[in-house]
């Protein structure tokens, strides 16, 4: 099984939060090597959709299926989720953080430097996370994507707090992931610069 044979389908998805229907009847399908960009106004449900895909939010109606993936694991367990919260511990150092996630998510601890290098954090490796600036924290939380290979990336406004150079670097990483047959679903308010990506606009037209 190579990951390029994967396909992720959502059929007739609905999401209810706090008693309100955020979206309904939402469908899309995504093949390996493809990206889906979620746009729409604040409160349209972009973050909610990503959490549903990650298995972190109940699916009110409809279904999410990953075909060609590991049948013993849920789609969420084959995905990376980078949300608004960065899951960083202030008292751990940068490199310790990456090593922990490699171990926990099932890779060998060696090779953490590659991930730090890819996000331009190598020179900060031994600094405690508490000392990082907003953009540096963001980059560290994105380093997980590289540290452990998983076919699906779920990114919630990934460029927030990143400077221009880091945005370019992230774009390169995303293209590389797609090139290897991975899939990306990203919510954003800005133009990510991913050519050929599908776009799904949430909001007024979706509202039931």
């Amino acid at each position: 099984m190579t990951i390029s044979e994967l396909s992720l389908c959502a059929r007739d998805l609905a999401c209810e939060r706090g008693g309100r229907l955020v979206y309904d009847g939402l469908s899309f399908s995504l093949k390996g090597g493809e990206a889906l960009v979620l746009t729409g106004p604040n409160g349209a449900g972009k973050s909610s959709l990503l959490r549903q895909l990650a298995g972190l939010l109940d699916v009110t109606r409809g279904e999410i299926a990953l075909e060609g993936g590991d049948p013993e694991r849920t789609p969420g367990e084959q995905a990376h989720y980078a949300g608004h919260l960065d899951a960083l511990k202030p008292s751990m150092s940068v490199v310790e953080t990456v090593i922990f996630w490699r171990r926990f998510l099932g890779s060998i601890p060696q090779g953490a430097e590659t991930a730090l290098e890819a996000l331009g954090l190598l020179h900060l490796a031994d600094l405690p996370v508490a000392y990082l600036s907003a953009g540096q924290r963001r980059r560290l939380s994105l380093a997980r994507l590289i540290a452990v290979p998983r076919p699906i990336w779920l990114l919630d406004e990934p460029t927030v707090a990143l400077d221009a150079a880091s945005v370019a670097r992230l774009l390169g990483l995303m293209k590389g992931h797609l090139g290897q047959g991975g899939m990306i679903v990203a919510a954003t308010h800005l133009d990510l610069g991913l050519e050929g990506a599908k776009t799904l606009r949430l909001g007024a037209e979706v509202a039931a």
Partner: protein
Amino acid sequence: MMRAFLALLARDLRLAVRLGGGGGMAVFFFLIVISLLPLGIGPDRALLAKVAPGMLWVALLLAALLTLDRLFQADYEDGSLDLLTMGPLPLELVVVAKAVGHWLTTGLPLVVAAPLLGVLLNLPGEAYPPMMAAMLIGTPALSFLGAIGAALTVGIRRGGLLASLLVLPFYIPVLIFGVGAADAAAGGFSGEAGRQSLLLLGAVALASLVLGPLGGAAALRANLR
């Protein structure tokens, strides 16, 4: 899976140590509570000896309760818990790793410190071995049962107090059998009663080893979405 389990445990221990002393802090708290007691009830040595095992256990429970919010709350607030559920480790084992970490940084140090405090409270000599045995058996139950309460209150900011409240009724059997084991020895009953208390305590502890992860994982699942 084993690797993931150990990684999580190691991380929790490291964080506990860095965030101000892990075990040391719990022991220090235990020490202060125990030294408050004579201040509260007066320096009558016979009275102290009588209440000593009970007091040690009550202080143990309180120290465990005070540290419950360390179990899941921080991981919930910074988003780590979301990612922990997305790993290869079943949620039940995540709870086990957390509970074991909690025990290693609170229960175990307290057990080690208890004899010293027994001296402060004028505990009679023959009560030490059964008391230590009871504590070694009983403290893991405190951590595993505590995990349920911590998981139930995980979404709630400052849920520490609520978690204590929810968990306290579950600690009562541990307290009763734990004290029973020490008291029987101190009170000069035959060893029979003490041994029976220890056995019952062991049963409660075993039950909590099953109940804690199952209940904790169910509670986390309820709270995480």
